[in-house]
């Protein structure tokens, strides 16, 4: 027995000495925690957004932007990049579900998303509290990056513009260019549409116009004749309906069928900027206006990007936030490269708080949507909005820049 004890003690002592003298293990000193990536594992990033249903093209378009960024990046510090996606369904509940699923996956480093402001409202608390950081390519609701936003938004930034600019541009266009004085708005109950039409209303009134009706529908409504009759009863010259593709298609198609609205000018916003709108609205879409980020002001890298997009996916860009998603992904890669620590056996360690701070510290980043600097409240986007007009209702002729054509400024 005694010999057994002596042997064991000897072995324990040797092991302890060897451990103490061996290569130092990495200890995580990050406030939130660290992500550990083994030498053969990929770097895991995720995309969450609306990928199904009538509005699916919005999220799919951004996902394509992220995929092109990954292809362009190749390897990140010697590791492959793995992308997983979650569908947020463009609703707060969908966003909450997607965020919960992503938050439990501890291999995720950072996220690009969400597509709809509603999804962020539902899911951001879960993501921030799990230590994750997400950059949205297409949320535009102003309050998400306002100075008085709640601490739940600490992990949230965006490369898209804020609707404070989009609503203002739309109001300027309507009042100064189209010279209409009586406008009506229709929203669909989503936080994005409500906020955007309110910005339009406030700006339009400041310029001197009158708002004759502010109505709302549900996102899943198909028959808009009744609400359009109510709007017609107020006698507008211009209807602004900054909603999503499905409902927007119905309103556009049915507006011409309602007595009193035959000569009314119709305008939508970036949530409807998709060839699916032409499918849904048909010939009624010709001549309608859409507000959206201004592509013509994107730096030279954008044309090359569109070329890659067309080559890889066989279609002109489906919506407008692909470039913002590309920039969002690249901002994440740049921040990752800055803060990742490689220890002796090749394992990468990334502190979550350090990564978040590095993303917020992004300054003068040369993206394809412009030179981006992230503010302390998460606004990284360069806000330039333009108004486009649809010239042809044939979905196969969709080519942002030509159809729809930029007409203002």
């Amino acid at each position, binding site marked *: 027995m005694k010999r057994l004890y002596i042997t064991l003690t000897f072995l324990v002592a040797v092991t302890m000495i060897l451990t103490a003298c061996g290569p130092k293990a990495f200890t995580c000193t990050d406030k939130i925690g660290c992500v550990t990536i083994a030498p053969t594992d990929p770097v895991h990033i995720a995309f969450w957004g609306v990928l199904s249903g009538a509005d*699916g093209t919005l999220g799919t378009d951004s996902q394509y932007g992220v995929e092109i960024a990954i292809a362009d990046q190749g390897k990140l510090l010697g590791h492959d990049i793995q992308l997983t996606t979650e569908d947020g369904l463009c609703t707060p509940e969908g966003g909450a579900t997607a965020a919960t699923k992503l938050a439990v996956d501890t291999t995720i480093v950072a996220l690009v998303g969400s597509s709809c402001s509603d999804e962020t409202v539902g899911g951001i608390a879960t993501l921030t509290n799990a230590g994750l950081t997400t950059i949205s390519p297409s949320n535009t609701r102003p309050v998400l990056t306002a100075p008085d936003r709640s601490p739940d938004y600490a992990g949230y930034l965006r490369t898209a513009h804020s609707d404070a600019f989009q609503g203002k541009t739309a109001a300027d266009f309507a009042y100064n260019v189209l010279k209409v004085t009586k406008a009506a708005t229709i929203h669909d109950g989503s936080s994005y549409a409500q906020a955007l039409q309110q910005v339009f209303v406030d700006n339009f009134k400041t310029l001197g116009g009158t708002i004759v009706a502010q109505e709302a529908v549900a996102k899943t409504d198909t028959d808009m004749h009744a609400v359009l009759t109510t709007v017609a009863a107020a006698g507008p010259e211009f209807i602004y309906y900054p909603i999503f593709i499905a409902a927007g298609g119905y309103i556009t198609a049915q507006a011409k069928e309602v007595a009193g609205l035959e000569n009314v000018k119709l305008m939508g916003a970036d949530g409807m900027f998709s060839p699916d709108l032409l499918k849904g609205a048909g010939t009624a879409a010709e001549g309608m206006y859409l507000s959206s980020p201004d592509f013509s002001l994107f730096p030279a890298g954008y044309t090359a990007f569109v070329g890659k997009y067309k080559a890889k996916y066989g279609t002109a860009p489906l919506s407008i936030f692909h470039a913002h998603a590309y920039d969002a992904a690249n901002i994440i890669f740049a921040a990752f490269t800055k803060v990742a620590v490689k220890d002796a056996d090749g394992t990468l360690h990334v502190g979550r708080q350090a990564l978040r701070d590095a993303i917020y510290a992004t300054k003068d980043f040369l993206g394809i949507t412009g030179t981006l600097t992230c503010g302390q409240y998460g606004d990284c986007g360069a806000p330039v909005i333009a108004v486009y007009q649809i010239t042809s209702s044939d979905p196969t002729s969709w080519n942002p820049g030509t159809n729809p054509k930029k007409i203002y400024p």
Partner: protein
Amino acid sequence: MRTTLTEKIGEVAVAVFLWGFRILVVSVVIIGTILTIREGKYTGVQWIDFIVFGIARGSIYAMIALGYTMVYGILRMINFAHSEVFMSGAFGGYFLANAMGQSGFLDKYPVLGLVAAVLVGMLVSAGVALLVERIAYRPLRKAPRLVPLISAIGASFFLQYTFRGFFGPGIYAYPNVKVLSGEWNIFGIGILKMQVVVAVAAFIMMAVLYTIVMRTKIGKAMRAVSENKDVAALMGIDVDGIIVATFGVGAAMAGAAGVLYALMFRQVNFFMGFTPGIKAFTSAVLGGIGNVPGAMVGGIVLGIFESIGPALFLDGLGIIRPYQLQDAIAYIMLVMVLLFRPSGIVGEKLTTKKA
């Protein structure tokens, strides 16, 4: 049986609540209507427009409701997969209509093209419904009532996601039928051609169905099976065959409704059956479930209420954005009708021994 004091108090409380609810809703409706008409925001033509839009919607609901009501009458089961039968009819008609639209056939022979699309839609939905009946309902004929119901819900999801798998989540657009765009002037009122066609088609189909059920031998067999399945079998009626025929006819109606709906609203996608299905089920219950004319009446009434409700009841009360409450109005009205007249508008009271 003597009820205890607490039970009596409970009964009185529930009765008070129900009466209070009825009085509240009726007063909201009456006061809102009076205020709106006094405000005079809408012209007479616009009120007629509201009613016409409501009738068009209601006709679609009525056609789908026929399927629900017939299956309930025969099998005492709500066929939740019926909304997907509607959707499959729209999809079936889509491919033919799209091909015709692109080749120009639809412009040259519009009537023929439309009839062909509707027929194809009817065939596809009937096929889907028969498959569902054979696979999901027939093996469960002797099971307790809840089991086929769950099977129906499962079939509904299965069909939705099968279509999503085959056709993707995006929308497909029906072609624009030139002959149907524009309006007709009827009695000095401009009514959209599309809506007239939908309403007339719905009425014709319902009249045909009513004749079949009331005047033909197979209709008599259907009524016999819905009275008492076992005795009907003893009388020599092929119960399985009759049930298949019922499903087929109900589905054909829904398929036609699908094609007409898609011609009106143009967008077809895998989830389109959900809301019309619920509204149609509501109409069937509203009119009296198990009753064919009831489904028709229920559909039209629901459509009109949905269309005219927000403007008539809520606008006058100063409620902003009343159209967001459109669905609430429809369902509250259903509840009210069921509170006042549980068997539905046209339904007959079931004798206790049947229940």
